[in-house]
């Protein structure tokens, strides 16, 4: 199964849970299935969903691969975008700066992990503080108002194509298709699975694990930059505190989507389905007037629940560890 990364079992469980959750909410208030509600769910899920794509690749690379700084990257990139627009640069250039800055920050993470040999969790914990600190310094802690920016820019986060959110149709779905091709059809994806499964084996087949892993961090940074631009356009605001929760929630989504936290397994398809589930549950809970303080707890329950269900289906009992521990990286 590891060779393809698809986990039909987990994906099935997640789809079922999504339908049941939506059904449960609809029993309480059928209005939740209305167009505007589904539209809002999609809009609110796109940014975290795009970030989770990058996180999927990083975690797939194995050897403790994880990126705790994705939210901070998105925030700092978004702040740079805001400053660029305020300084009078044309919006396409500002967006390019935002996305390039995201990729650049991802490259810094990659270089620290692969060249300086700092464990990923420490590297990205440190850069999370650095990037979000820098975003605060640059703005003085004040949100940058972009509501008067060009309408074409705001369209990135507020526009619609054929009645569907622009960012879903023109950014999220294309990114999903490209990443499916990269992960499951291209050489890079196969190499990434091998690197994530066993560094030694990958090296013996002539791959360069560090180079491949460094790329995953760059992609994660790029994705965070894109999410930062969408968020800024959606709210007409560049905030140093934007996407703050994405640092951890993106990891939760990736693990929920069936990726092994130890690498070498998982798929962006699983990540996509997990994003939908989390998006539906989060929106539904606040729609149903559920105390937001408890929402984070509910997500934790779903994460544990999905792993337990998966274990039960695949015949492992309660004694089994929640994550696949069938191999050690060499």
């Amino acid at each position, binding site marked *: 199964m590891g060779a393809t990364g698809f986990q039909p079992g987990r994906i099935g469980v997640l789809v*079922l*849970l999504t339908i*049941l*959750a939506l*059904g*449960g*909410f609809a*029993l*309480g*208030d059928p*209005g939740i299935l*209305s167009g*505007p*509600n589904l539209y*809002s769910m999609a809009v*609110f899920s796109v940014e975290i969903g795009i970030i989770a794509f990058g996180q999927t690749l990083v975690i797939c690379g194995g050897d403790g691969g994880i990126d705790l700084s994705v939210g901070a990257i998105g925030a700092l990139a978004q702040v740079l975008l805001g400053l660029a627009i305020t300084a009078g640069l044309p919006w396409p250039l500002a967006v390019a700066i935002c996305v390039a800055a995201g990729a650049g920050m991802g490259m810094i993470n990659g270089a620290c992990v692969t060249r300086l040999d700092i464990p990923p969790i420490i590297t990205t914990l440190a850069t999370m503080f650095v990037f979000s600190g820098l975003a605060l310094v640059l703005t003085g802690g004040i*949100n940058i*108002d972009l*509501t008067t920016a060009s309408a074409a820019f705001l369209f990135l986060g*507020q526009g619609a194509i054929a009645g569907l959110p622009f960012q879903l149709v023109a950014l999220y779905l294309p990114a999903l298709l490209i990443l499916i091709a990269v992960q499951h059809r291209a050489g890079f994806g196969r190499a990434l699975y091998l690197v994530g499964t066993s560094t030694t084996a990958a090296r013996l087949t002539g791959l360069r694990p560090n180079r491949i892993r460094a790329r995953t961090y760059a992609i994660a940074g790029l994705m965070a930059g894109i999410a930062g631009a969408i*968020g800024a356009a*959606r*709210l*007409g*605001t560049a*905030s140093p*505190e*934007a*996407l*703050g929760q994405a640092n951890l929630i993106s990891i939760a989504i990736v693990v929920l989507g069936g990726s092994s936290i130890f690498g070498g397994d998982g798929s962006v398809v699983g990540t996509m389905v997990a994003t939908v589930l989390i998006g539906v*549950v989060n*929106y*539904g*809970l*606040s*729609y*149903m*007037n*559920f*105390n*937001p*303080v408890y929402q*984070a707890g*509910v997500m934790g*329950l*779903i994460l544990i*629940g*999905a792993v*337990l*269900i998966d*274990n*039960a*289906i695949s*015949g492992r*009992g*309660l004694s089994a560890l929640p994550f696949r521990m069938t191999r050690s990286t060499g």
Partner: protein
Amino acid sequence: MTRKITLAGAVSVPALALAVALAPGSASAKDYTIGFVPKLVGIPYFTAMKQGLEKAGKKFGAKIVYQGPTTASVSGQVEIAESLINKHLDAVGVSANSPTALSAVAKKAKAAGVLFYSSDSQVDGPDVSLRVSQADDKALAYAVIDQLAQQVGDKGDVAFVSGGPTATNLNVWIGFMKDRMKAKYPDMKLVSIQYAGEDISKATDVTSQLLSAYPNLKGVVGVNSTAVPGAAQAVLSAGMSGKVAVTGITDPNTIRPFVNNGTVKSVVLWNPVDLGYLTAWAVLQELDHKQLKAENDVPGLGKIAYDAKTKTLLLGKPLVITKKNIGLNF
């Protein structure tokens, strides 16, 4: 065993969804439903506003939906406000984390036929049907000086300790305080204005220096919420309790210990419970298409001024907090 786990897991998500959906209960058909999204939930100030909203809701027949983000984030607030609009409540309002980002939400509300209002912290733009503002700056500043005069016997040297030297609202208050002294208490002399930021211990240091520099000092005014307890601490440490009066603008929770030990006789603020109450009352007037007048008789609050040009209703009456009502929780 295994099957049981699967079943429990599969049932838990929709069961939760359903439980949440049914929990709030349904409002009776004729009552209006008013949504309010504070800057953040879980702090006493907004919990007090909620109490006021619910008090008015009970009295005038409206259901209050109180939902907010757990941190003062623009995106969290926008998402919750949009979900309430999608739900087609009769009215949705905010205490805005950004005056501009929320104006897009106001536009959306108008398009959906939902009345949009802001209270406590306002939203810009033409789509806001009603604004409820807490206190008249002038009345607040005058009330502080009146309290001070009462405690120092209308004469003697006094000093101000403020927050940031560039904070707009604080400087406006200082200006009105000076006016009041000049006009009504000519024997009171302002000897110094110091700035201590939003930092209690810095305010303590600054006040200690004032006490040694001006041995005839009779009173200290803390202009922001951290300056008052800071000044009180300095006066208490210097053994000057009762000899040097301390008053200013702050909330009961912050100043309670110093009121209880007698260092501070009174402080001034607006009452957030009244603010919530007035907000709900005014929203109901709008929903019933009752035109607000320049001066309105609000049951339980008295005369309340309304500015038709900015659509702003002003709570106006500062609340003097003394030992008698220090039990207020906000």
